[in-house]
């Protein structure tokens, strides 16, 4: 038994390094997409203290809007612009109709409101687009669909071109977001609001504008995530469950930390794949990805309740 846990997995890794590279690549692709979804959560939480339960359905809604518009004969790149427009309108409507009337209410009320938004978007999406699985317009968007076959160590490493594209686009989006948050006036306003609500308001930062902005950014993230996941297995309401994979990322990285979301996503993506392949499948019958990330996050929380990169909460009583 000890051999199976401490020796055999590492022997396997060294015996087939090409396979290990494949496992790490698949983990990296999953991880960067988890990080993207987690970023959507973090941005909204930082600026408004709202845990946005609707992030998952926003991924579905954005992807469905994109393929739905294309099915109506709209050219692919125009569909992207129109979908961004829809996500902007959604951000404005959410701010005006849901969030503004709830300013000053306890966090749990705002959280419940996002559950309401989720249910509303599920119903609206089903009425407009139907529940059928739809094909993502991968080729129409110019995303390459072939594979790159490499032969490291005399073995085989398959890199899907759409996965490579997803990693590059996600990385660019993350870098762009970091530049926006750190170098622009609006970005600094979002961070200021996250750091101290009252102080930010007192220097003239508009709560309404910032909320629309962060929900719109979350919408952009949702669209990119929806394209990347949709290109893998179609666009359907099943995509919503992918968002739940971001929960352990947030627990691990910290709900307020952008760095935490990125590193947490990558860590969970790669570690859950390594564990599943080298320990989960041989020793536990597989399907450990369902729980591994949560257990890992719980272990981290035992030692750092604020997550790896979260801010320590000190409340004086």
């Amino acid at each position, binding site marked *: 038994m000890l051999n199976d846990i401490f020796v055999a997995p590492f022997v396997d890794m060294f015996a087939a390094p090409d396979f290990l590279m494949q496992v790490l690549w698949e983990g990296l692709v999953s991880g960067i997409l988890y990080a993207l979804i987690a970023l959507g959560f973090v941005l909204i939480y930082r600026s408004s203290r709202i845990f946005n339960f609707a992030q998952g359905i926003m991924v579905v809604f954005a992807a469905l809007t994109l393929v739905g518009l294309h099915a109506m004969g709209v050219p692919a790149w125009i569909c992207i612009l129109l979908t961004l427009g829809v996500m902007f309108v959604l951000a404005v409507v959410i701010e005006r109709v849901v969030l503004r009337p709830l300013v000053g209410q306890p966090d749990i009320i705002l959280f419940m409101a996002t559950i309401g938004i989720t249910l509303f978007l599920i119903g609206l999406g089903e009425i407009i687009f139907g529940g059928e699985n739809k094909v993502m317009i991968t080729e129409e968007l110019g995303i390459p669909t072939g594979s790159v076959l490499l032969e490291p160590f005399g073995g085989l490493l398959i890199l899907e071109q759409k996965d490579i594209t997803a990693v590059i686009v996600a990385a660019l989006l993350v870098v762009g977001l970091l530049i926006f948050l750190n170098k622009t006036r609006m970005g600094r306003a979002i961070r200021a609001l996250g750091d101290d609500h009252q102080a930010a308001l007192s220097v003239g930062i508009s709560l309404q504008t910032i909320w629309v902005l962060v929900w719109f950014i979350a919408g952009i993230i949702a669209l990119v995530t929806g394209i990347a996941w949709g290109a893998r*297995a179609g666009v359907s309401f099943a995509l919503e469950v*992918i968002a739940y994979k971001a929960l352990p990322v947030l627990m691990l990285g910290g709900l307020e930390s952008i760095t935490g979301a990125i590193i947490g996503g990558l860590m969970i993506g790669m570690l859950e794949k390594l564990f599943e392949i080298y320990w989960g499948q041989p020793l536990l019958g597989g399907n450990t990805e369902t729980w591994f990330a949560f257990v890992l996050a719980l272990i981290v929380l035992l030692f750092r309740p604020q997550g790896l990169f979260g801010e320590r909460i000190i409340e004086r009583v």
Partner: protein
Amino acid sequence: MKQFARLAAAAVVASLGAGAAIAEGLYTPNLSYRTGPFAATGIPLMNGQADYMAMLNARDGGIGGAMIDFEECETGYSTEKGVECYEKTKGKAIVTQPWSTGITLQVLPKTNVDEIPILAPGYGFSPMADGKVFQWAFNIPAGYWDAADMIVQYIEGQGSLDGKKIVFLHLDHPFGKEPLPLMESLAEQKGFELVPVPVGLKEMQNQSAQWLQIRRERPDYVVMWGWGAMNAGAITEAVKTKFPMENMLGVWWAGHDADLKIVGEDGKGYKSISWSFPNADAPVMADIKTHVVDAGNSQSNEEEMSGVFYSRGIIISAILGEGIATAQKHFDTAEIDPGQLRWGLENINMTEERISELGLDGMVPPFSTSCSNHTGHSGGWMLEWDGEKFVKVSDLLTANVDNYAELIASSASEYADANAPWPVNEDCEG
């Protein structure tokens, strides 16, 4: 505002009135799932079911003079919601159609007390075939163990299975685990190595870990017990990992046209066992078009109607319709009760002639049921994806039921013992 309130009130009253008008006739609720992660596979099935019943109502005035009150209760494939739907509809229902193995297992003991037949065509608990023990449950016309046996038979037709390796890729859910006992037994008998690979509900669209395992195991075949978004996820990964598609075979719920259209040409060679097949030239299709589609009462569309799942929905309703007609004839009454429908479902004799009379030519194999045989064991055809649609690539395959009759009997008896006191049908001679 007042006007809006009045309009809303009027709408509610009108809908209640409409509901009351529809409520007359034989109430056959369907615990449907047009929403949630499995909606993509549910919608065409539900549409086929609903359109067939609507066609019978429009063309024949129902069945035997009684209109069919076919109502859907949405479960989203959630077992909890399914049980709620069952409780909500059981009062006047003559049948319940639970539409998930999880829901079927939950309502199975309840239907024994409520004395309502469960109709679970091609799903549910395989030992339900034993009608003496499961007197209120039917999985007509074939069960999961039939499917597993036919798939293994088909693979064996390509050469001996001795020393071969078969990966069993399945949803980590009661549905996915259902054929495992038989697959394990067949592995022992035929000398192949069985490698079960579960897919969690949250991993359906991200099966890279499962397919890395498959790459490492280097199996000769992959048998897939997939459902909903799992199918498209698996087929996409199979294409990505260059697994030979002709060596990948699925159960009938993993043979949905829309899932294969995602990979198109790359999915050529993928196979799925099926007890139903679309036939655009069958008279029933023309009748549905005339009486339902042209009348604007269908939720389906031309593309969906040409697919395997829509036609399977038609067959499912046709099986229920045949059970109702058989009972009406025997008891000489149009308004049958659940007990009489049970008798009807136990005495279906779907011969080639009867299939033709119903306008279902080529869409379902012949089968018959009895009080001891609640499945019918119709057999099925192996279908193959040709890049655009599914085509038949085998003659009718029939499951070697004798080989696992003992397993059915022992599993049924085990279930009855575990749920004692469990009433069995002592009058059934076999």
